[in-house]
């Protein structure tokens, strides 16, 4: 920390002995900004939502109480919330990883849907001949490859053809859903599924089981591990460092000789493979077969989770669980308060808008400026 070297004016009036408080506050100021602004945004969002609830003649206090009860009030509801958060962890990564490279991918839904179909298709020939463990690994691998190719294609188009990745991934999501319908109603359809066309269901022993001691499937653990791996990838490895540089300034990264194209394709492919894995988990742990329920909007809620977590893979874990809890409480709110199930959607939308709006407050509050706390003599003056 050579403040004096940077600022000659200070070096002249030099105050050599600095209190230890300065660096601590400097560190705090740097860390506190995202936390304080995010919490403030959530409070503003909740306040606006409360106004809305009051406007329709209901009590926000009762609603938040129910939301807590339904999401986290008992061991049963906690497990329900955790189960719901599992796909969100993975689809949020599909948004967060490319976002660190400066890309806005919103088509994770496509990778989820095709990952689910690929997993179901990969299991079909081996059910009964291979042990369940191997079949599950094959399913996961197939889902990750397909999901990775799908979103990686959007990254490829971005770098090598200059096609906007937001639009291309969105288009790819629609194409994926059409492909899924085609497969599920055509070549992969189980003739026994009459009302809801599905692939042949997995036998019970081939399903992804529950975490021991909990009524939550292994998808949760897989999602959390994926978040941790992603955090290490971004924050610890040199690839992640290179990706963050490219996300900050592509030109600078290219001048440095960083392989921007390979980084973009690689990161979007990893992101897509996580979303594909979410589809596999949905098939292997929840549905038992691939069908139209795969397009349940996990890809789109994942966008919300990633933005709330500011694209930090570790922050995704609590945010996804929180949103899983809000989602889980929808039924209770509907039954007890007579409010439509879309209440949860209104809350999510309000929070999403307010939190994105609050991005504008970054750098506006002097108190979060680390340089303010760097000034030598700030604490010595009074003494």
């Amino acid at each position, binding site marked *: 920390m050579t403040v004096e070297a940077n600022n000659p004016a200070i070096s002249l009036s030099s105050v050599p002995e600095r209190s230890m408080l300065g660096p601590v506050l400097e560190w705090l100021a740097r860390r506190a900004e995202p936390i304080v602004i995010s919490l403030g945004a959530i409070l503003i969002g909740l306040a606006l939502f409360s106004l809305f609830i009051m406007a329709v003649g209901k009590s926000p206090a009762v609603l938040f109480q129910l939301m807590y009860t339904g999401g986290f009030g008992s061991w049963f509801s906690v497990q329900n919330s955790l189960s719901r958060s599992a796909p969100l962890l993975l689809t949020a990564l599909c948004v967060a990883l490319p976002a660190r490279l400066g890309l*806005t991918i*919103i088509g994770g839904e496509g990778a989820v849907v095709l990952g689910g179909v690929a997993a179901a298709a990969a299991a079909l020939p081996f059910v009964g001949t291979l042990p369940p463990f191997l079949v599950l690994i094959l399913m996961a691998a197939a889902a990750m490859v397909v999901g990775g190719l799908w979103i990686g294609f959007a990254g490829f*188009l971005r*770098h*090598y*053809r*200059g*096609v*906007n990745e*937001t*639009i*291309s991934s*969105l*288009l*790819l999501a*629609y*194409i994926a859903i*059409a*492909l899924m*319908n*085609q497969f599920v*109603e*055509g070549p992969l359809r189980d003739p026994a599924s009459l009302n809801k066309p599905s692939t042949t269901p997995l036998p019970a022993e081939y399903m992804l089981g529950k975490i021991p001691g909990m009524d939550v499937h292994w998808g949760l653990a897989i999602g959390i591990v994926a978040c941790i791996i992603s955090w290490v990838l971004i924050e610890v490895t040199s690839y992640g460092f290179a990706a963050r540089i490219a996300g900050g300034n592509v030109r600078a990264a290219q001048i440095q000789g960083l392989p921007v194209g390979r980084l973009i394709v690689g990161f979007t492919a990893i992101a897509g493979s996580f979303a594909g894995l979410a589809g596999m988990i949905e098939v292997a742990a929840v549905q038992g077969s691939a069908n139209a329920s795969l397009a349940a909007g996990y890809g*789109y809620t994942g*966008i*919300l989770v990633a*933005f709330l977590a500011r694209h930090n893979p570790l922050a995704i874990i609590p945010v996804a669980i929180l949103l899983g809890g809000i989602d889980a409480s929808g039924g209770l709110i509907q039954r007890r308060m007579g*409010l*439509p*199930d*879309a*209440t*949860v*959607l*209104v*809350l*999510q*939308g*309000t929070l*999403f*808008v307010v939190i*994105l*709006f609050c*991005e*504008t407050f*970054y*750098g506006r509050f002097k108190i979060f400026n680390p340089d303010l706390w760097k000034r030598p003599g700030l604490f010595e003056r009074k003494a």
Partner: protein
Amino acid sequence: MMDDTGIGIWGVPLAIFAGAIRVSTPFIFVSLGETITERSGRINLGLEGTLVFGAMTAYAVAVMSGSAWLGVLAAMGTGAVLGLIHGWICKWPKVNDIAIGIAMMQFGLGLAFFLGKPFIKPVAPHLPSIPLGTWSAMPQIQAALNINVLFILGALLAVVLWWAFKNTRIGLVLRVVGDSTDAARAMGINPDRVRLLATAVGGSLAAVGGAYLSLYYPGSWNEGISSGQGLMAVALVIFARWNPIGCFLAALLFGGAGALGPALQSVGVTQGYYLFYAAPYVLTLAILIATSSPTRSLSGAPGALSLTK
């Protein structure tokens, strides 16, 4: 084969024609709205929410007032409000207009489903249509030429906008702001205000597209009313190169592609039925890939648009 229709295989092009007009009308309004917004240099990805909220408002107001046109007006009002919110938030620094669009979409959808719950059952009056096929004795042709009024209004609006972008002062101001924020400021124009109004107008047009869905075809309100018409608007506008006439033609093309599947199914072709739904998306992606380049922005794109940089 359905020979009892009397026109046999000719039913396919007729069904595509009728389907194109029926399906394309919401596309026309949404894409014209998005064109106005994007020509001002901003992108509103939240038109899906605006469209669905417009569909709900139009239906609810039509049920309560008994007038379908009052419903359309109310939808335009709420669409403009949603556009104003989007535009106001986006004028602040560091706010990402693409992300705000996605958030506004969720907000609009949630609010529409919440407020629209009581209106799923009641029946609203429909918007009128003009029977242009009375010269023919065949009921198929009469049905196909029964053109809804909003389609005609949309076609007129496309021509008017195309003319206005080129020949009016408002059109010029919009294009200056869209091409260069700095040039607009130098001319004494407030870019934020122009974009705010452009987003509001875009929102109100998208809501008309929604009103068409709930008040004409399919003509009812439910949570699955939209099949992504609002999201497709962004792709359509790129496809149409930010040209209102192009939007109209692209909307017809998308409508026709969407009608291809059901039309073929009606004459017994059932293979690959679902793939026809993907046709417009594949088409847009193919055209994007063919015309984009990593070294220059898309031709015809407004210079200040974040999307094409």
